[in-house]
């Protein structure tokens, strides 16, 4: 969706601008091009138009300002450079056709956990779709490039997640993803057999990522009509070319991480990727890795497009892991590695630490300290970051290795409640019917906003759509848009999409009853008593910004700029995934007693039948009925008085 991309690009812009100011290379065009990309994409609804502008505040991001005790070092000179506005820096340097950037964001969470997010971006100005085959690959992974050209993919988003993002404790993630695997793909409108291509594509991706994506078939694929819009350029929104599927059961582990790391230009040899050691990454509360491919504008007027490959990896480390007596984190503690260099192929390589809630260092202390600060609008909130640029030798200090240390001082301070979150559960008992409850919380004190709810339910839960109720604050809340596609047994799932207005400070409950189908006995999984998964429902929304709620926001801005709540800041795009469900279906007892019951019943039935026959029947010889001629002859003989034949 366009608005979604806004949040991306808002963040992306920060990266770009950072590189611009520090490296002073010609990222300008990329930046503005990206910005423009948002504008050319004309969204469908009014809400999206509102969201589309969300990246605007990011454009006017705060420039670098040194901390008070900024020491005169090399960075200072950089700072001097950057303080001069270079808005329209003409790009005289010849552009490389492809470009790689890497960054790591560390956000200490209020729960004491720590959220680390890696992003690797490869840009390549090429056209996979043109007739001539692209054969020379430099930074862009060849395996994905071939997939794009072979299957005419316009956009591809794939994520593998182990664990559930705890919105209420951790706030919103930079990139949301549901537990298990999620895949959504926009195909070019030149594709004729979308389903066939989709099937092939899932199989190929299954091979590339060592995942069970080949289990994606028509029974778990849907075509959402509104929830997933293209994030890149192009305005084809015909959802015939969109396929969306989730595999909530997918387990993500090292075998998925290794092929993911291989897609990076530096592999896991240099740069930030050296931190990606699986023994630590999978020793966490949450692990999510994703690949996003989309076309983006290359220049200001979007004359040329380039392909963007964005690999992200999000990990939340748990405060309560063993051996965590002292409340402190370091790169070494988290990843059992320290950083010594940036990836030589990367044009930018940075580490950000979110210090928004810690302006005076009262909550935690970061060492080594950095004089560089950055600000950005992230998910409607203005965040401040300490920045470490790995391309500068000075960052590594005298020991030639960077081991960031975060030491907690106090655990006070409350997190701002996320404005939107959702949860889902199955109500009722017994194995015949049930009810799916989806709760959507709007925690905004005075603003209501619309959300799009997408539910894809497997066919073996037979939804009674007439029981669908949407209620908030005890009153019926009529959705303004409902798109429902009923399931077909063993062919396709239910698809339910709704546009619901969430009143301020309320819980909206969507309930629908279902009946549990009795499967054929070969359709049960090998562990039928485990239950059957129903994928997460997706809540997409434009959420009013927190900045508008912030009374102190005038503090950092000139007064003239801040009287009216700035429209551009007023909402941002959020996608929230609910928990997947585990539903028990009526299951025959496949264990030994079941077989015994079957066998004994058969034996008893056979034995009883024959015994009953013996007891109640008498046996006689059936006289074969004489033929017609013989019967006629006998009648005649009878009339003649002669004994019959």
């Amino acid at each position, binding site marked *: 969706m366009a608005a979604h991309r806004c949040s991306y690009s808002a963040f992306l812009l920060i990266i770009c601008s950072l590189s611009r100011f520090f490296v002073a290379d010609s990222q300008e065009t990329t930046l503005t091009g990206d910005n423009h990309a948002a504008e050319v994409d004309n969204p469908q609804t009014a809400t999206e138009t509102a969201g589309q502008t969300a990246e605007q505040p990011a454009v006017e991001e705060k420039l670098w300002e040194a901390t008070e005790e900024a020491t005169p070092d090399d960075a200072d000179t950089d700072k001097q450079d950057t303080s001069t506005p270079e808005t329209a820096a003409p790009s005289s340097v010849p552009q490389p056709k492809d470009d790689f950037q890497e960054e790591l964001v560390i956000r200490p969470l209020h729960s004491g956990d720590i959220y680390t997010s890696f992003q690797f971006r490869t840009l390549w100005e090429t056209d996979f779709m043109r007739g001539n085959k692209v054969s020379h690959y430099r930074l862009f992974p060849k395996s994905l490039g071939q997939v794009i050209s072979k299957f005419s993919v316009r956009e591809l988003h794939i994520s593998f997640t182990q664990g559930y993002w705890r919105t209420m404790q951790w706030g919103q993630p930079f990139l949301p993803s549901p*537990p*298990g695997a999620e895949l959504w793909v926009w195909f070019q409108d030149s594709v004729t057999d979308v389903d066939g291509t989709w099937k092939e594509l899932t199989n190929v991706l299954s091979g590339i990522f060592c995942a069970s994506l080949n289990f994606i078939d028509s029974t778990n694929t849907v075509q959402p009509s509104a929830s997933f819009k293209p994030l890149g350029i192009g305005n084809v929104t015909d959802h015939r070319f969109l396929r969306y599927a989730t595999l909530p059961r997918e387990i993500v582990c090292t075998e998925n991480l290794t092929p993911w790391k291989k897609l990076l230009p530096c592999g896991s040899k240099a740069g930030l990727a050296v931190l990606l050691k699986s023994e630590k990454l*999978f020793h*966490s509360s949450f692990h999510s890795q994703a690949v996003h491919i989309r076309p983006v504008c290359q220049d200001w007027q979007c004359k040329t497009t380039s392909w963007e490959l964005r690999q992200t990896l999000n990990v939340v480390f748990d405060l309560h892991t063993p051996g965590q007596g002292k409340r402190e984190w370091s790169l070494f503690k988290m990843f059992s590695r320290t950083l010594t260099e940036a990836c030589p192929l990367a044009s930018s390589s940075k580490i950000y630490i979110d210090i928004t809630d810690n302006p005076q260092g009262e909550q935690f202390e970061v060492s080594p300290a950095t004089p560089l600060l950055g600000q950005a609008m992230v998910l409607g909130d203005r965040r401040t970051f300490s920045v470490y640029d790995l391309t500068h030798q000075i960052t590594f200090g005298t020991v030639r290795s960077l081991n960031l240390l975060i030491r907690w001082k106090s655990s006070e301070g409350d997190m701002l409640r996320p404005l939107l979150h959702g949860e889902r559960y199955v109500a009722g008992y017994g194995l015949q019917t049930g009810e799916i409850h989806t709760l959507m919380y709007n925690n905004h004190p005075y603003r209501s906003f619309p959300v799009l709810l997408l539910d894809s339910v497997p066919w073996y839960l037979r939804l009674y759509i007439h029981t669908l109720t949407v209620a908030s604050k005890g009153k019926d809340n009529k959705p303004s848009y409902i798109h429902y596609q009923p399931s077909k047994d063993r062919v396709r799932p239910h698809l339910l999409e709704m546009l619901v207005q969430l009143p301020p400070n309320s819980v909206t409950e969507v309930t629908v009853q279902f009946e549990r189908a009795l499967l054929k006995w070969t359709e049960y999984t090998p562990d*039928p008593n485990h239950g059957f998964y129903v994928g997460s429902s997706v809540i997409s929304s434009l959420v009013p910004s927190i900045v508008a709620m912030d009374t102190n926001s005038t503090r950092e801005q000139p007064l003239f700029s801040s009287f009216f709540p700035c429209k551009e800041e007023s909402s941002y795009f959020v996608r929230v995934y609910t928990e*997947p469900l*585990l539903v028990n279906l009526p299951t025959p007892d496949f264990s030994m007693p079941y077989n015994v019951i079957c066998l004994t019943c058969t034996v008893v039935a056979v034995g009883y039948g024959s015994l009953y026959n013996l*007891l*109640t029947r008498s046996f006689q*010889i059936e006289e074969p009925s004489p033929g017609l001629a013989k019967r006629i002859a006998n009648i005649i003989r009878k009339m003649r008085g002669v004994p019959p034949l």
Partner: protein
Amino acid sequence: MAGLELLSDQGYRLDGRKATELRKVQARMGVFAQADGSAYLEQGNTKALAVVYGPHEIRGARSRIRHDRAVINCQYSMATFSTAERKRRPHGDRKSTEMSLHLKQTFEAAVMTQLYPRSQIDIYVKILQSDGGNYSVCVNAATLAVIDAGIPMRDYVCACTVGFVDETPLADLCYAEESGGVSSLALALLPRGGQIALLQMDARLHQDHLESLIEAAMTACKGVSKVLDEVVDVTLETGSSVSKLYVTTDNNMGLLSDPNRRRALISLLTRLNAPICVVCYMAGVAWFMGLAFEPFTLRTYMSENAMGSTMVEERFPAGERALATGREFSAHKKKAGGMPVDWLVKTMQARGLEVFAQRFSRTLPFPDENKERYLVKGTNVYGILRAPRAPRTEALVLSAPCTPGDNNNQAVGLLLGLAQYFRNQVYWAKDIIFLVNEHDLIGMQAWLEGYHHTNTTGMDWSPLQGRGGSIQAALSLELSSDVITSLDLVLEGLNGQLPNLDLANLFYAFCQKIGVLCTIQGKLQRNDWDSVSGYSHSVQTMMLMVMKQASGRPWGDHGLFLRYHIEAATIKGINSFRQYKTDTTTIGRLLEGMYRKLNNLLERLHQSYFFYLMPSLSHFVSIGYYMPAFGLLAVILLLRALDLWVQLATPPPRTEDGVADTEQMSSPGVLSVLTPLVISHLTGVALYMLPIGFQEVAVEHFPVSETEAVVLTAIAIYTAGLALPHNTHRLLSGEGTEQGWKVLKLVAVLYLAVLLGCTALINFSLGFILALTLVPVAAFVTPHVPKVLSAFILVILSPACTLLFSVFFFQELQEMPVSFIDGWMLFLSVISQGILDHSLYGSLVYPLIALLVYPCWLLFWNILFWK
């Protein structure tokens, strides 16, 4: 025509036959055992042997396969000694080949080859002695062989050779005639339809004669066919080769369909009805008592592989700290005068859990016996340990009730201690919910209803904020002292539901491993099963389980989980005066071990038994073993019903009275049955509705409390029911008839049988106890037994008295005998508790007794006083 005179003037041929006379034909079938069919045929001096193999799969060239029919393969040969001059080669010469071909054509026309597609039939014919007419002899012999092989043919194929001499056709030529220059004609015929299968003629013949020649040949063939037919008949009769299906034709009917036998059987059943019933009853009781005998029971074993052999080391260290937390909890509880919600929330949050609280309130229909409360208000506090990298789909529950007074503080302390320890572990795959519920079962009911968003009993609760997916298993903890001597496992849940036996096995396995004394029903396990005291010990244990299960109430906080298909049990710490002491750390380790195993579960517990009785923790009785005990009791009802049915069906032998009876029976039939049924059920409805409905009226008019009012109303209605219905039929139909009560009893007996059967399937213990008392009643009651004595027995065996005795018996089993007055008070409280359980948790025992069992018993009461 020189040389021999083939036909004399007298019309005789060389060998003295007439022109149309055949040679003597002799044949045998089935001469070889190995072949599928074989025949030997002599025609005069020509002797041939034919053998048939098949139909079988095609051998050799696959190209010969015909997909619509069988291929016939013929081979003709002559023995070297068959002719006057010794032959060089027995087969393969021109003549033989030609003859083979002819045979093949003949049989292709006759055999129903389309029945055997893609197969082959081999016919081998050998001439042993040749004296003319070789072809026809071969055909005849082969026909017999094919018949012998059981291959269907359109008809016999009979062949004959005829010649034409002097304007006269000669039938069945011999060698001399054949070689004498007669123009011969061979003809194979399907005699019944008169079709010609093959006609062959080598010599020249005038066209005019052909007609007569063929005519003669056909006549001859028909003659041959007659002979062959006889041969076949003879063969069949002697039964040499063809097996015949003999069907017994005796006049024996089936055992039940034969009226005589049926009568005998029925008279046996009616005559011996009483003894059989007594024997069945004895056998049923004996079987049941035998269940507790250890050699008859099965040893428990862990069925679930995921919980099986993986050994982990339990490391929970913080028993002392848990006790300290428990003391702190107790202090805060005293200060708050109930659940210390804020303290608990803070403590749990400090341990890194997601903490939520749920408020609930419940209006009781009447104040319960010992607590005197109408409105129950409380708060449940629960914390969720989120498993790392788990998608919130599965959860385990550990609960400890917050009871008023000094009880269970240690349980809450241990729960918090475990929460802290568990939080720091990384191996959890399922969320763990630590629940402290107020007001025991009511709080648990509120929490479970909130968690599953159901409302079965009209309780008010605030919705839950946090969930952990579907709950896989739950344990409820009750600890009231710092040091305990043994742990008691409580399994019985609402309506007699039991958790999967694997949960009990898990508990037992860990008690064994860690070395904690464990009991069930408060009874330690004993090893001396062969001694009387050992046996009686296990009987007591099992009887306690039966009693508890029959009561249908949840015997611990776990009992309410079972409705939601969550396996749950309560673990109670017992501190008696035994020497053996266990500290809290050990119990913590035990729980740690159990939760780690439950955490390993891939599926819900489903492998082991759901229906069982436990005479000790290490032994169990599965449903297959205990059901026969009930079946033996239930069969009595069926036997009695059969007896009554027979009695009703056969009018009594008295001539005039009998006629009168049957006439009367037909008119009041329906009403005389229906009225008591309706009245007794209305009484049942009154018993179900009135006690709660009329409590206010009762309290106004009598000096009793609400609870007493309810119980006493119930008893009053119960007693009034005895006086009410037993004379009603007289108002409607005048004199009660003999047939009338029999019909009523038949209905009542069958009703009881269905009722008990259904009850026993759901809750075996309840069904069995009811059967134990009600079946004798149903069996012996008639209007003709002595009234006073029978009425006494009937009252003694009524459901209420059964309950009263059960109360005493239960106390006796628990080694806490009570005096009669105390027992009576206990009885009253049990009634009130039963009614409360029904309205609070949906226990079904009270409505079952009031609406179904009691009315059924009233029917028998009615029969006793039938006039």
